Protein backbone atom coordinates (compact mmCIF):
# COMPACT_ATOMS: atom_id res chain seq x y z
CA UNK A 1 0.00 0.00 0.00
CA UNK A 2 1.24 3.46 -0.86
CA UNK A 3 1.82 5.45 2.28
CA UNK A 4 -0.06 8.73 2.28
CA UNK A 5 1.70 10.64 5.04
CA UNK A 6 -0.76 13.52 4.88
CA UNK A 7 -3.66 11.41 6.02
CA UNK A 8 -1.90 9.54 8.79
CA UNK A 9 -2.62 10.07 12.45
CA UNK A 10 -1.25 7.90 15.26
CA UNK A 11 -4.26 5.61 15.53
CA UNK A 12 -4.70 5.09 11.79
CA UNK A 13 -0.97 4.43 11.47
CA UNK A 14 -1.12 1.91 14.27
CA UNK A 15 -4.01 0.11 12.56
CA UNK A 16 -2.13 0.00 9.24
CA UNK A 17 0.99 -1.34 10.94
CA UNK A 18 -1.02 -3.94 12.77
CA UNK A 19 -2.80 -5.08 9.64
CA UNK A 20 0.48 -5.14 7.77
CA UNK A 21 -0.61 -2.57 5.15
CA UNK A 22 2.93 -1.25 5.47
CA UNK A 23 5.82 -2.00 7.79
CA UNK A 24 7.50 0.24 10.35
CA UNK A 25 10.53 0.25 8.09
CA UNK A 26 8.52 1.41 5.07
CA UNK A 27 6.89 4.08 7.18
CA UNK A 28 10.23 5.30 8.51
CA UNK A 29 11.65 5.30 4.97
CA UNK A 30 8.77 7.46 3.76
CA UNK A 31 9.56 10.03 6.44
CA UNK A 32 13.29 9.89 5.74
CA UNK A 33 12.57 10.52 2.05
CA UNK A 34 10.40 13.55 2.91
CA UNK A 35 13.11 14.85 5.21
CA UNK A 36 15.71 14.49 2.53
CA UNK A 37 13.50 16.39 0.12
CA UNK A 38 12.33 19.22 2.35
CA UNK A 39 14.77 19.65 5.21
CA UNK A 40 17.50 21.42 3.21
CA UNK A 41 15.05 24.30 2.68
CA UNK A 42 13.11 24.19 5.95
CA UNK A 43 15.99 23.45 8.36
CA UNK A 44 13.59 21.76 10.76
CA UNK A 45 16.06 19.03 11.74
CA UNK A 46 19.56 19.73 13.01
CA UNK A 47 20.38 16.05 12.74
CA UNK A 48 18.64 13.01 11.32
CA UNK A 49 19.70 9.93 13.24
CA UNK A 50 21.61 7.34 11.25
CA UNK A 51 20.03 4.36 12.98
CA UNK A 52 16.36 5.04 12.21
CA UNK A 53 16.01 1.82 10.22
CA UNK A 54 17.57 -0.20 13.04
CA UNK A 55 15.10 1.39 15.45
CA UNK A 56 12.38 0.37 13.00
CA UNK A 57 13.59 -3.20 13.05
CA UNK A 58 13.29 -3.30 16.85
CA UNK A 59 9.78 -1.92 16.62
CA UNK A 60 8.84 -4.54 14.06
CA UNK A 61 9.92 -7.24 16.46
CA UNK A 62 7.41 -5.88 18.97
CA UNK A 63 4.67 -6.17 16.35
CA UNK A 64 5.71 -9.71 15.51
CA UNK A 65 5.71 -10.66 19.19
CA UNK A 66 2.24 -9.17 19.60
CA UNK A 67 3.65 -6.68 22.10
CA UNK A 68 3.09 -3.55 20.07
CA UNK A 69 1.26 -0.66 21.69
CA UNK A 70 -0.22 2.44 20.14
CA UNK A 71 3.11 4.29 19.88
CA UNK A 72 5.21 1.36 18.66
CA UNK A 73 6.90 2.28 15.41
CA UNK A 74 5.51 5.84 15.40
CA UNK A 75 8.16 8.19 13.95
CA UNK A 76 8.76 11.20 16.16
CA UNK A 77 10.98 14.27 16.12
CA UNK A 78 12.67 15.46 19.31
CA UNK A 79 13.61 19.02 20.21
CA UNK A 80 17.34 19.54 20.62
CA UNK A 81 17.03 20.24 24.36
CA UNK A 82 15.73 16.77 25.29
CA UNK A 83 18.40 14.19 26.02
CA UNK A 84 18.64 10.83 24.26
CA UNK A 85 21.42 8.65 25.61
CA UNK A 86 24.47 8.45 23.37
CA UNK A 87 23.26 11.15 20.99
CA UNK A 88 24.23 14.76 20.54
CA UNK A 89 22.08 17.32 22.30
CA UNK A 90 22.86 20.98 22.09
CA UNK A 91 19.84 23.23 22.73
CA UNK A 92 20.93 24.79 19.41
CA UNK A 93 23.82 26.48 21.20
CA UNK A 94 27.49 26.65 20.35
CA UNK A 95 28.33 26.30 24.01
CA UNK A 96 27.12 22.69 23.90
CA UNK A 97 29.03 21.85 20.73
CA UNK A 98 30.20 18.26 21.03
CA UNK A 99 27.98 17.36 23.99
CA UNK A 100 26.70 13.77 23.97
CA UNK A 101 23.85 12.95 26.35
CA UNK A 102 24.96 10.45 29.01
CA UNK A 103 21.38 9.43 29.88
CA UNK A 104 17.81 9.38 28.57
CA UNK A 105 15.28 12.03 29.52
CA UNK A 106 12.33 10.40 31.29
CA UNK A 107 10.00 11.13 28.35
CA UNK A 108 12.48 9.45 26.00
CA UNK A 109 12.86 6.45 28.28
CA UNK A 110 9.10 5.99 28.33
CA UNK A 111 8.75 6.14 24.56
CA UNK A 112 11.80 3.97 23.94
CA UNK A 113 10.23 1.28 26.08
CA UNK A 114 7.22 1.10 23.75
CA UNK A 115 9.34 1.16 20.59
CA UNK A 116 8.62 4.64 19.25
CA UNK A 117 11.03 5.78 16.53
CA UNK A 118 13.18 8.88 17.00
CA UNK A 119 13.90 10.37 13.59
CA UNK A 120 16.18 13.18 14.67
CA UNK A 121 16.64 16.30 16.75
CA UNK A 122 14.93 19.50 15.76
CA UNK A 123 16.00 23.11 15.55
CA UNK A 124 15.05 25.63 18.21
CA UNK A 125 15.97 29.02 19.60
CA UNK A 126 19.16 28.70 21.61
CA UNK A 127 18.28 27.28 25.04
CA UNK A 128 14.62 27.70 24.07
CA UNK A 129 14.93 31.48 24.29
CA UNK A 130 12.96 33.03 21.51
CA UNK A 131 9.79 32.98 19.48
CA UNK A 132 11.13 32.41 15.97
CA UNK A 133 14.14 29.99 15.99
CA UNK A 134 16.14 32.96 14.71
CA UNK A 135 18.23 32.60 17.88
CA UNK A 136 19.44 29.14 16.86
CA UNK A 137 23.19 28.92 16.35
CA UNK A 138 22.41 26.76 13.31
CA UNK A 139 20.18 29.00 11.23
CA UNK A 140 16.46 29.76 11.22
CA UNK A 141 13.72 27.18 10.58
CA UNK A 142 11.40 28.25 7.78
CA UNK A 143 7.65 28.07 7.92
CA UNK A 144 6.36 25.31 5.61
CA UNK A 145 3.39 27.54 4.71
CA UNK A 146 5.60 30.44 3.58
CA UNK A 147 9.35 30.09 3.50
CA UNK A 148 9.82 33.84 3.91
CA UNK A 149 8.35 33.53 7.38
CA UNK A 150 9.42 32.05 10.70
CA UNK A 151 8.06 28.77 11.98
CA UNK A 152 7.75 30.30 15.44
CA UNK A 153 9.70 29.30 18.48
CA UNK A 154 11.28 28.14 20.39
CA UNK A 155 10.10 24.66 19.24
CA UNK A 156 10.05 25.86 15.62
CA UNK A 157 11.84 22.82 14.21
CA UNK A 158 9.39 20.43 15.85
CA UNK A 159 6.38 22.42 14.59
CA UNK A 160 7.72 22.68 11.04
CA UNK A 161 8.58 18.97 11.03
CA UNK A 162 5.03 17.97 11.94
CA UNK A 163 3.46 20.50 9.56
CA UNK A 164 5.60 19.42 6.60
CA UNK A 165 5.08 15.67 7.20
CA UNK A 166 8.68 15.21 8.32
CA UNK A 167 7.46 13.43 11.47
CA UNK A 168 4.12 12.09 12.63
CA UNK A 169 4.44 14.03 15.87
CA UNK A 170 7.15 15.76 17.87
CA UNK A 171 8.31 16.72 21.31
CA UNK A 172 8.76 20.34 22.23
CA UNK A 173 9.24 22.25 25.44
CA UNK A 174 7.17 25.22 26.53
CA UNK A 175 8.41 27.87 28.96
CA UNK A 176 6.28 30.80 27.79
CA UNK A 177 4.56 29.48 24.68
CA UNK A 178 7.37 27.61 22.94
CA UNK A 179 5.13 24.70 21.95
CA UNK A 180 1.87 26.56 21.32
CA UNK A 181 3.15 29.56 19.37
CA UNK A 182 5.06 27.56 16.72
CA UNK A 183 2.15 25.09 16.60
CA UNK A 184 -0.15 28.02 15.77
CA UNK A 185 2.27 29.47 13.20
CA UNK A 186 2.63 26.11 11.45
CA UNK A 187 -0.98 24.93 11.73
CA UNK A 188 -0.58 21.99 14.09
CA UNK A 189 -1.84 21.07 17.57
CA UNK A 190 0.39 21.95 20.53
CA UNK A 191 -0.08 21.09 24.21
CA UNK A 192 1.60 22.62 27.24
CA UNK A 193 0.70 20.29 30.10
CA UNK A 194 0.01 21.28 33.72
CA UNK A 195 3.28 22.20 35.43
CA UNK A 196 4.58 18.96 36.87
CA UNK A 197 2.41 16.63 34.78
CA UNK A 198 5.40 15.57 32.68
CA UNK A 199 8.88 14.97 34.06
CA UNK A 200 11.54 17.54 33.20
CA UNK A 201 14.33 15.08 33.91
CA UNK A 202 16.65 15.22 30.91
CA UNK A 203 15.28 18.50 29.59
CA UNK A 204 17.99 21.17 29.38
CA UNK A 205 16.61 23.66 31.88
CA UNK A 206 15.63 27.21 31.02
CA UNK A 207 13.08 28.49 33.55
CA UNK A 208 12.59 25.68 36.01
CA UNK A 209 9.32 26.91 37.51
CA UNK A 210 7.87 27.35 34.00
CA UNK A 211 9.28 24.62 31.71
CA UNK A 212 7.16 21.69 30.55
CA UNK A 213 7.70 19.11 27.82
CA UNK A 214 4.71 18.48 25.58
CA UNK A 215 3.62 17.14 22.20
CA UNK A 216 3.17 18.85 18.83
CA UNK A 217 0.86 16.77 16.71
CA UNK A 218 -1.52 16.72 13.77
CA UNK A 219 -4.68 16.04 15.77
CA UNK A 220 -5.95 16.52 19.32
CA UNK A 221 -6.19 12.77 19.68
CA UNK A 222 -2.51 12.37 18.76
CA UNK A 223 -1.51 14.98 21.35
CA UNK A 224 -3.66 13.14 23.89
CA UNK A 225 -2.07 9.77 23.11
CA UNK A 226 1.44 11.17 23.54
CA UNK A 227 0.55 13.12 26.66
CA UNK A 228 -0.93 10.02 28.28
CA UNK A 229 2.21 8.08 27.40
CA UNK A 230 4.58 10.59 29.02
CA UNK A 231 2.69 11.94 32.02
CA UNK A 232 3.72 10.40 35.29
CA UNK A 233 5.12 11.21 38.68
CA UNK A 234 8.87 10.76 38.41
CA UNK A 235 11.30 10.28 41.26
CA UNK A 236 13.90 12.05 39.11
CA UNK A 237 11.88 15.28 39.04
CA UNK A 238 10.68 16.39 42.44
CA UNK A 239 8.20 18.85 40.92
CA UNK A 240 6.18 16.19 39.12
CA UNK A 241 2.65 15.92 40.45
CA UNK A 242 0.87 12.93 41.91
CA UNK A 243 -2.49 11.71 40.68
CA UNK A 244 -4.10 13.34 43.69
CA UNK A 245 -2.15 16.61 43.67
CA UNK A 246 -5.09 18.43 42.14
CA UNK A 247 -8.63 17.75 43.13
CA UNK A 248 -9.64 14.67 41.22
CA UNK A 249 -13.01 15.41 39.71
CA UNK A 250 -14.92 13.50 37.16
CA UNK A 251 -13.78 15.17 34.00
CA UNK A 252 -16.71 14.29 31.80
CA UNK A 253 -17.75 17.41 30.00
CA UNK A 254 -21.41 18.32 30.41
CA UNK A 255 -23.45 18.75 27.27
CA UNK A 256 -23.52 22.42 28.15
CA UNK A 257 -20.12 23.78 29.01
CA UNK A 258 -18.78 27.24 29.68
CA UNK A 259 -16.00 28.94 27.73
CA UNK A 260 -14.66 32.13 29.32
CA UNK A 261 -13.31 34.96 27.19
CA UNK A 262 -11.18 37.72 28.75
CA UNK A 263 -12.39 40.41 26.32
CA UNK A 264 -10.50 43.26 28.00
CA UNK A 265 -7.32 41.49 27.04
CA UNK A 266 -8.09 41.13 23.35
CA UNK A 267 -7.98 44.68 22.07
CA UNK A 268 -4.72 46.43 21.46
CA UNK A 269 -1.99 44.93 19.34
CA UNK A 270 -4.01 41.99 18.03
CA UNK A 271 -4.20 41.69 14.24
CA UNK A 272 -7.77 42.11 12.87
CA UNK A 273 -7.56 38.82 10.96
CA UNK A 274 -6.66 37.09 14.22
CA UNK A 275 -9.64 38.60 16.04
CA UNK A 276 -11.98 37.67 13.22
CA UNK A 277 -10.71 34.11 13.22
CA UNK A 278 -11.03 33.97 17.02
CA UNK A 279 -14.68 35.06 16.90
CA UNK A 280 -15.34 32.36 14.31
CA UNK A 281 -13.71 29.86 16.67
CA UNK A 282 -16.02 30.92 19.49
CA UNK A 283 -19.01 30.43 17.16
CA UNK A 284 -17.81 26.89 16.50
CA UNK A 285 -17.71 26.14 20.21
CA UNK A 286 -21.16 27.67 20.64
CA UNK A 287 -22.42 25.24 18.02
CA UNK A 288 -20.81 22.44 19.97
CA UNK A 289 -22.84 23.39 23.03
CA UNK A 290 -20.71 26.00 24.75
CA UNK A 291 -21.97 29.03 26.59
CA UNK A 292 -19.54 31.86 25.79
CA UNK A 293 -19.09 34.00 28.87
CA UNK A 294 -17.19 37.25 29.31
CA UNK A 295 -14.73 36.93 32.16
CA UNK A 296 -12.42 39.28 33.99
CA UNK A 297 -8.83 38.43 34.75
CA UNK A 298 -7.80 41.81 36.16
CA UNK A 299 -4.10 41.07 36.56
CA UNK A 300 -3.52 39.16 33.34
CA UNK A 301 -2.16 42.33 31.72
CA UNK A 302 0.88 42.03 33.97
CA UNK A 303 1.65 38.47 32.82
CA UNK A 304 4.28 39.38 30.30
CA UNK A 305 6.10 41.61 32.80
CA UNK A 306 6.05 38.90 35.43
CA UNK A 307 7.28 36.40 32.87
CA UNK A 308 10.15 38.54 31.63
CA UNK A 309 11.36 38.98 35.22
CA UNK A 310 10.97 35.45 36.59
CA UNK A 311 12.18 33.66 33.46
CA UNK A 312 15.49 35.56 33.05
CA UNK A 313 16.07 35.24 36.79
CA UNK A 314 15.79 31.47 36.48
CA UNK A 315 17.80 31.50 33.25
CA UNK A 316 20.66 33.27 34.96
CA UNK A 317 20.84 30.50 37.56
CA UNK A 318 20.27 27.59 35.18
CA UNK A 319 22.82 28.72 32.63
CA UNK A 320 25.51 29.16 35.27
CA UNK A 321 26.43 25.51 34.70
CA UNK A 322 27.75 26.20 31.21
CA UNK A 323 31.25 27.29 32.03
CA UNK A 324 33.51 25.34 29.69
CA UNK A 325 34.60 23.04 32.51
CA UNK A 326 32.11 20.20 32.78
CA UNK A 327 30.75 19.81 29.25
CA UNK A 328 30.45 21.34 25.84
CA UNK A 329 32.88 23.66 24.17
CA UNK A 330 35.49 25.85 25.77
CA UNK A 331 37.48 28.92 24.81
CA UNK A 332 40.68 29.16 26.76
CA UNK A 333 41.92 32.38 28.35
CA UNK A 334 44.88 33.37 30.52
CA UNK A 335 43.35 32.06 33.75
CA UNK A 336 40.25 30.28 35.01
CA UNK A 337 38.16 33.47 35.24
CA UNK A 338 39.07 34.35 31.65
CA UNK A 339 38.09 30.82 30.59
CA UNK A 340 34.62 31.50 32.00
CA UNK A 341 34.32 34.98 30.53
CA UNK A 342 35.43 33.95 27.05
CA UNK A 343 33.58 30.65 26.88
CA UNK A 344 30.30 32.18 28.04
CA UNK A 345 30.76 35.52 26.30
CA UNK A 346 31.62 34.07 22.92
CA UNK A 347 29.62 30.85 22.83
CA UNK A 348 26.27 32.06 24.19
CA UNK A 349 24.26 33.84 21.53
CA UNK A 350 22.97 37.40 21.83
CA UNK A 351 19.57 36.57 23.28
CA UNK A 352 21.02 34.23 25.88
CA UNK A 353 23.46 36.94 26.96
CA UNK A 354 20.69 39.52 27.07
CA UNK A 355 18.61 37.33 29.36
CA UNK A 356 21.59 36.50 31.55
CA UNK A 357 22.18 40.23 32.05
CA UNK A 358 18.47 40.86 32.72
CA UNK A 359 18.27 37.96 35.15
CA UNK A 360 21.37 39.09 36.97
CA UNK A 361 19.89 42.59 37.21
CA UNK A 362 16.50 41.59 38.66
CA UNK A 363 18.19 39.32 41.19
CA UNK A 364 20.87 41.77 42.28
CA UNK A 365 20.71 43.16 45.80
CA UNK A 366 19.39 46.64 44.98
CA UNK A 367 16.60 45.52 42.64
CA UNK A 368 15.54 42.17 44.04
CA UNK A 369 12.49 43.50 45.90
CA UNK A 370 11.40 45.89 43.17
CA UNK A 371 11.56 43.28 40.42
CA UNK A 372 11.89 39.66 41.43
CA UNK A 373 9.93 39.69 44.67
CA UNK A 374 7.25 41.89 43.16
CA UNK A 375 6.95 39.55 40.18
CA UNK A 376 6.54 36.56 42.49
CA UNK A 377 3.73 38.36 44.34
CA UNK A 378 1.97 39.39 41.13
CA UNK A 379 2.32 35.84 39.84
CA UNK A 380 0.22 34.79 42.81
CA UNK A 381 -2.40 37.47 42.03
CA UNK A 382 -2.68 36.19 38.46
CA UNK A 383 -3.06 32.61 39.68
CA UNK A 384 -5.83 33.76 42.04
CA UNK A 385 -7.66 35.42 39.13
CA UNK A 386 -7.64 32.11 37.27
CA UNK A 387 -8.71 30.12 40.34
CA UNK A 388 -11.66 32.42 40.81
CA UNK A 389 -12.80 32.11 37.19
CA UNK A 390 -12.58 28.32 37.26
CA UNK A 391 -14.41 28.22 40.60
CA UNK A 392 -17.25 30.19 39.01
CA UNK A 393 -17.91 27.32 36.64
CA UNK A 394 -15.82 28.23 33.61
CA UNK A 395 -14.52 25.02 32.02
CA UNK A 396 -11.95 26.59 29.75
CA UNK A 397 -10.65 30.02 28.82
CA UNK A 398 -10.28 30.89 25.16
CA UNK A 399 -7.89 33.37 23.54
CA UNK A 400 -6.05 33.47 20.24
CA UNK A 401 -2.70 31.67 20.60
CA UNK A 402 -0.75 34.55 19.08
CA UNK A 403 -1.55 38.20 18.33
CA UNK A 404 -0.58 37.77 14.65
CA UNK A 405 0.12 35.04 12.11
CA UNK A 406 3.76 34.06 11.46
CA UNK A 407 5.94 37.12 10.93
CA UNK A 408 8.69 37.51 8.36
CA UNK A 409 12.21 36.28 9.01
CA UNK A 410 14.20 39.26 10.28
CA UNK A 411 11.10 41.35 11.00
CA UNK A 412 11.52 41.35 14.77
CA UNK A 413 14.97 39.97 15.31
CA UNK A 414 16.45 43.39 16.07
CA UNK A 415 13.75 44.40 18.50
CA UNK A 416 13.71 42.03 21.48
CA UNK A 417 10.77 43.73 23.18
CA UNK A 418 8.59 43.36 20.05
CA UNK A 419 9.60 39.72 19.92
CA UNK A 420 8.61 39.27 23.57
CA UNK A 421 5.16 40.71 22.87
CA UNK A 422 4.47 37.73 20.60
CA UNK A 423 4.17 35.67 23.80
CA UNK A 424 1.38 37.79 25.29
CA UNK A 425 -1.36 35.11 25.22
CA UNK A 426 0.79 32.12 26.03
CA UNK A 427 2.92 33.13 29.02
CA UNK A 428 0.02 33.16 31.50
CA UNK A 429 -0.41 29.40 31.41
CA UNK A 430 3.26 28.96 32.36
CA UNK A 431 3.10 31.61 35.05
CA UNK A 432 0.17 29.96 36.81
CA UNK A 433 1.02 26.38 35.81
CA UNK A 434 -2.23 25.45 34.06
CA UNK A 435 -2.49 23.31 30.93
CA UNK A 436 -3.09 24.97 27.56
CA UNK A 437 -3.79 23.68 24.09
CA UNK A 438 -3.33 25.45 20.77
CA UNK A 439 -5.65 24.28 18.00
CA UNK A 440 -5.32 25.06 14.29
CA UNK A 441 -8.24 27.39 13.58
CA UNK A 442 -7.93 28.31 9.93
CA UNK A 443 -5.88 30.72 7.92
CA UNK A 444 -5.23 34.38 7.36
CA UNK A 445 -4.51 35.46 3.82
CA UNK A 446 -1.37 37.63 3.82
CA UNK A 447 0.56 38.60 0.68
CA UNK A 448 -1.17 35.88 -1.28
CA UNK A 449 -0.17 33.16 1.19
CA UNK A 450 -2.42 31.29 3.55
CA UNK A 451 -0.92 31.53 7.02
CA UNK A 452 -2.22 29.28 9.80
CA UNK A 453 -3.76 30.71 12.98
CA UNK A 454 -4.18 29.15 16.41
CA UNK A 455 -7.01 29.07 18.94
CA UNK A 456 -5.89 28.60 22.53
CA UNK A 457 -7.82 26.88 25.31
CA UNK A 458 -6.63 26.91 28.92
CA UNK A 459 -8.17 25.02 31.78
CA UNK A 460 -7.60 24.37 35.47
CA UNK A 461 -4.63 22.47 36.88
CA UNK A 462 -4.62 18.76 36.05
CA UNK A 463 -7.55 18.86 33.63
CA UNK A 464 -5.91 18.15 30.30
CA UNK A 465 -8.75 15.70 29.61
CA UNK A 466 -11.15 18.64 29.37
CA UNK A 467 -8.94 20.35 26.83
CA UNK A 468 -8.84 17.22 24.69
CA UNK A 469 -12.60 16.82 24.85
CA UNK A 470 -13.31 20.41 23.88
CA UNK A 471 -10.49 20.34 21.33
CA UNK A 472 -12.01 17.32 19.58
CA UNK A 473 -15.37 19.07 19.38
CA UNK A 474 -13.62 22.12 17.91
CA UNK A 475 -11.83 19.97 15.32
CA UNK A 476 -15.05 18.36 14.15
CA UNK A 477 -16.89 21.56 13.26
Amino acid at each position, binding site marked *: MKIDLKNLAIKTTHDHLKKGDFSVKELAESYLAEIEKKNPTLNAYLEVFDDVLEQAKEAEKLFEAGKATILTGIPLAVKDNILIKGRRAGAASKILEG*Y*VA*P*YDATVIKKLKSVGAIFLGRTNMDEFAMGSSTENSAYGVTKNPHDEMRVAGGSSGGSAAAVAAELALAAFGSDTGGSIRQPAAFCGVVGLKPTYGAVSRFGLIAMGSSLDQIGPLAKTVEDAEIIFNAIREQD*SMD*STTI*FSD*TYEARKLQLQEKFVIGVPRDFLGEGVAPEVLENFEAGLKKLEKAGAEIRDIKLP*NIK*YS*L*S*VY*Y*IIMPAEV*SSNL*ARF*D*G*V*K*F*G*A*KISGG*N*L*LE*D*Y*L*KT*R*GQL*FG*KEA*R*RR*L*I*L*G*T*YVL*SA*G*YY*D*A*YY*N*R*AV*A*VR*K*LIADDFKKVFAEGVHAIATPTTPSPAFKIGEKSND*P*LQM*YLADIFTVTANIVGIPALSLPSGFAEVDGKKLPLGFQLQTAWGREALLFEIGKKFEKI
Partner: protein
Amino acid sequence: MNFWEHETRAGFFVSILSMLKLEEIDKLAKLARLEIPAEEKETLRKEVEEILEYVGQIQKLSPKEPPKEAGIIRNIFREDKEPHQTGEFTDALLANAPEKENGYIKVKKIL
Protein backbone atom coordinates in the same frame (compact mmCIF):
# COMPACT_ATOMS: atom_id res chain seq x y z
CA MET B 1 10.50 44.95 58.58
CA ASN B 2 9.27 42.90 55.66
CA PHE B 3 9.98 43.86 52.11
CA TRP B 4 6.49 45.17 51.42
CA GLU B 5 6.90 48.03 53.88
CA HIS B 6 9.78 49.61 52.08
CA GLU B 7 8.18 49.16 48.74
CA THR B 8 7.80 52.94 48.20
CA ARG B 9 11.45 53.42 48.82
CA ALA B 10 12.31 50.62 46.43
CA GLY B 11 9.99 52.18 43.84
CA PHE B 12 11.70 55.54 44.24
CA PHE B 13 15.08 53.89 44.03
CA VAL B 14 14.09 52.24 40.78
CA SER B 15 12.68 55.37 39.20
CA ILE B 16 15.75 57.50 39.82
CA LEU B 17 17.96 54.75 38.54
CA SER B 18 15.81 53.76 35.61
CA MET B 19 18.49 55.04 33.28
CA LEU B 20 20.76 52.08 33.03
CA LYS B 21 24.40 53.09 32.84
CA LEU B 22 27.08 51.43 30.79
CA GLU B 23 29.09 50.76 33.95
CA GLU B 24 26.14 48.77 35.24
CA ILE B 25 26.24 46.58 32.15
CA ASP B 26 29.92 46.01 32.84
CA LYS B 27 29.20 45.06 36.42
CA LEU B 28 26.33 42.74 35.49
CA ALA B 29 28.43 41.12 32.77
CA LYS B 30 31.15 40.48 35.31
CA LEU B 31 28.67 38.95 37.74
CA ALA B 32 27.20 36.78 34.99
CA ARG B 33 30.71 35.79 33.82
CA LEU B 34 30.21 37.15 30.32
CA GLU B 35 32.70 38.94 28.17
CA ILE B 36 30.67 41.44 26.14
CA PRO B 37 32.32 42.88 23.03
CA ALA B 38 32.75 46.67 23.40
CA GLU B 39 30.77 47.44 20.25
CA GLU B 40 27.75 45.53 21.57
CA LYS B 41 27.54 47.19 24.96
CA GLU B 42 25.53 50.25 24.03
CA THR B 43 22.93 48.24 22.10
CA LEU B 44 22.66 45.81 24.96
CA ARG B 45 22.31 48.67 27.46
CA LYS B 46 19.49 50.20 25.44
CA GLU B 47 17.68 46.89 24.97
CA VAL B 48 17.91 45.92 28.61
CA GLU B 49 16.76 49.38 29.66
CA GLU B 50 13.76 49.16 27.35
CA ILE B 51 12.83 45.73 28.67
CA LEU B 52 13.24 46.87 32.28
CA GLU B 53 11.01 49.83 31.58
CA TYR B 54 8.34 47.51 30.19
CA VAL B 55 8.49 44.91 32.96
CA GLY B 56 8.70 47.71 35.55
CA GLN B 57 4.97 48.30 35.05
CA ILE B 58 4.32 45.71 37.75
CA GLN B 59 5.59 48.29 40.20
CA LYS B 60 2.32 50.15 39.69
CA LEU B 61 0.67 47.29 41.54
CA SER B 62 1.14 47.12 45.27
CA PRO B 63 -0.04 43.67 46.17
CA LYS B 64 -0.36 42.67 49.78
CA GLU B 65 2.22 40.17 50.77
CA PRO B 66 0.69 36.92 49.58
CA PRO B 67 -0.19 34.52 52.36
CA LYS B 68 2.18 31.58 52.42
CA GLU B 69 0.53 28.53 50.97
CA ALA B 70 1.66 24.98 51.34
CA GLY B 71 0.29 22.12 49.32
CA ILE B 72 0.31 18.57 50.51
CA ILE B 73 3.68 18.05 52.12
CA ARG B 74 5.44 14.92 51.03
CA ASN B 75 8.91 13.62 51.30
CA ILE B 76 10.16 13.56 47.73
CA PHE B 77 13.60 12.29 48.60
CA ARG B 78 14.44 8.71 47.88
CA GLU B 79 15.58 6.37 50.61
CA ASP B 80 19.29 6.72 51.23
CA LYS B 81 20.17 3.23 50.11
CA GLU B 82 21.19 1.17 47.09
CA PRO B 83 23.79 3.60 45.77
CA HIS B 84 25.03 3.03 42.24
CA GLN B 85 28.38 1.38 41.67
CA THR B 86 31.30 3.73 42.16
CA GLY B 87 32.53 4.84 38.78
CA GLU B 88 29.46 3.60 36.94
CA PHE B 89 28.87 6.95 35.23
CA THR B 90 32.36 8.39 35.41
CA ASP B 91 33.42 7.67 31.85
CA ALA B 92 30.20 8.86 30.25
CA LEU B 93 30.28 12.10 32.25
CA LEU B 94 33.97 12.75 31.83
CA ALA B 95 33.71 12.15 28.11
CA ASN B 96 31.91 15.49 27.89
CA ALA B 97 34.52 17.54 29.75
CA PRO B 98 36.63 19.71 27.44
CA GLU B 99 39.78 19.02 29.46
CA LYS B 100 40.53 16.06 31.69
CA GLU B 101 43.39 14.09 33.10
CA ASN B 102 43.50 10.72 34.86
CA GLY B 103 39.79 10.59 35.56
CA TYR B 104 39.60 14.21 36.72
CA ILE B 105 38.22 17.33 35.11
CA LYS B 106 41.08 19.71 34.55
CA VAL B 107 40.91 23.45 35.25
CA LYS B 108 43.49 26.19 35.46
CA LYS B 109 45.13 26.74 38.80
CA ILE B 110 43.15 29.13 41.05
CA LEU B 111 45.59 29.72 43.87
